[in-house]
């Protein structure tokens, strides 16, 4: 391990004020005898082979802190050399008021970025999976389910809790209020009540056929406000694959907190039920 010989070619003002050197001076050099003086390391020069060879520290540092600072210093140094810059910071520079260690401020940014990435990749998939598979919340618009939902019309719209978990096996009962993808417009979801399951014969209101037998894998849905509802009376039985969620509770406004009952109005009972 040799140090480059001290040169006097660089003007004194260029040399850092109180630099420490990172390798022991060889006996041949006629440099200063005392460590504390130190020989000025020329800016821009990285001393090979002197990694971690600090001879003297002026401040008592813990071993971990010392290693971290030396590593950061060399990391920066290599990076700066690659970009053609001069090394302008040293691991044991004296603390001046207001002057933060560049290594420490960069480390803070990197730590923050790493924590953000970790949190992002954990939180977003879990949240998305929860909202897709377990439960979510939705606002109801329109008057097709009055008086059960939105009785106030356009003044206040209800917010309901949609439970995906209950319909994960496509099991619904007659009278449930369910949300499904609209068969006429796939970008929209509609919320209706299940009137009949597969195999039942339904007496329709406004459909082109008077009596309809619900095919296998389909359900018949209707809104509670007959005549103001775009439901199976318009588009026929819907496939169970379009089922989205089961609306179980009203969450807002607070005076309408309730559990939604799955009861079927008696005049809408199917004409013939298919009992399993």
């Amino acid at each position: 391990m040799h140090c480059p010989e001290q040169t006097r070619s660089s003007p004194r003002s260029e040399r850092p004020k109180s630099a420490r050197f990172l390798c022991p001076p060889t006996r041949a050099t006629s440099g200063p005898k005392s460590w504390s003086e130190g020989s000025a390391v020329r800016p821009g020069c990285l001393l090979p082979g002197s990694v971690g060879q600090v001879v003297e520290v002026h401040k008592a540092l813990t071993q971990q802190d010392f290693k971290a600072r030396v590593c950061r210093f060399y990391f920066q140094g290599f990076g700066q050399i690659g970009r053609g810059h001069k090394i302008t910071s040293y691991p044991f520079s004296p603390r001046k008021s207001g002057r933060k260690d560049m290594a420490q401020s960069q480390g803070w940014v990197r730590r923050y970025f790493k924590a953000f990435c970790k949190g992002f990749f954990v939180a977003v998939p879990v949240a998305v999976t929860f909202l897709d598979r377990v439960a979510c919340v939705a606002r109801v618009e329109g008057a097709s389910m009055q008086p059960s939902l939105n009785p106030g019309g356009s003044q206040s719209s209800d917010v309901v809790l949609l439970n995906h978990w209950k319909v994960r096996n496509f099991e619904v009962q007659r009278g449930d209020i369910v949300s499904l993808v609209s068969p006429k417009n796939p970008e929209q979801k509609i919320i209706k009540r299940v009137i009949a399951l597969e195999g039942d014969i339904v007496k329709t209101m406004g459909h082109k056929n008077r009596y309809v037998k619900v095919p296998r894998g389909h359900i018949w849905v209707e809104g509670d406000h007959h005549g103001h509802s775009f439901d199976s009376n318009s588009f026929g039985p819907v496939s169970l694959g379009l089922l989205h969620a089961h609306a179980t509770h009203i969450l807002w406004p607070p005076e309408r907190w309730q559990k939604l009952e799955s009861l079927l109005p008696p005049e809408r009972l199917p004409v013939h039920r298919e009992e399993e």
Partner: protein
Amino acid sequence: MFFSGGLATTLQTECILEQTYGQWWQTLHRTMLRGVLGKTFRLIGYTIQYGCIVHCTFEYVGGVVMCSGPSMEPTIQNSDIVFAENLSRHFYGIQRGDVVIAKSPSDPKSNICKRVIGLEGDKILSSSSSDFFKSHSYVPMGHVWLEGDNLQNSTDSRYYGPIPYGLIRGRIFFKIWPLSDFGFLRDNPNGHRFSDD
């Protein structure tokens, strides 16, 4: 006197038992159980996290699917492995001629794999080519008309009618097994089924 004495001793033994049990539990807790419980919770946490990432990938990006059945020959044979992507479904970019995976309209737990012949509003030749009188029908709004490539051996929209767009799960665009057939899927071999719209 006898009873109260008996009661007192019973209570005393109960207290002693509780104390020893409590001490035993505490020692166990401090030494082994905490490590094991900690590891178990961490494992459960990682499983939930990776399960959610997998679900999001299959739901929103795509996945690998194995197709079975003869209804899409010669494009896709029985037990072929293909790539399916779900981005087209979410951005409503399914075109005519795409091979799609959809939920079966009569059984929501099983999937079908067919080719899109007509989108909403298209005029479809709904009678088979052997009939003398050709009949057309229009695909309703929000529905698609699916047909398999193997027309003799496929139950598709000619049997159960057009299906809603909301049942489509993804689009198949690349075959990865068998290796002799590696690559993008071929076009519709039954080109004459398209009616001009």
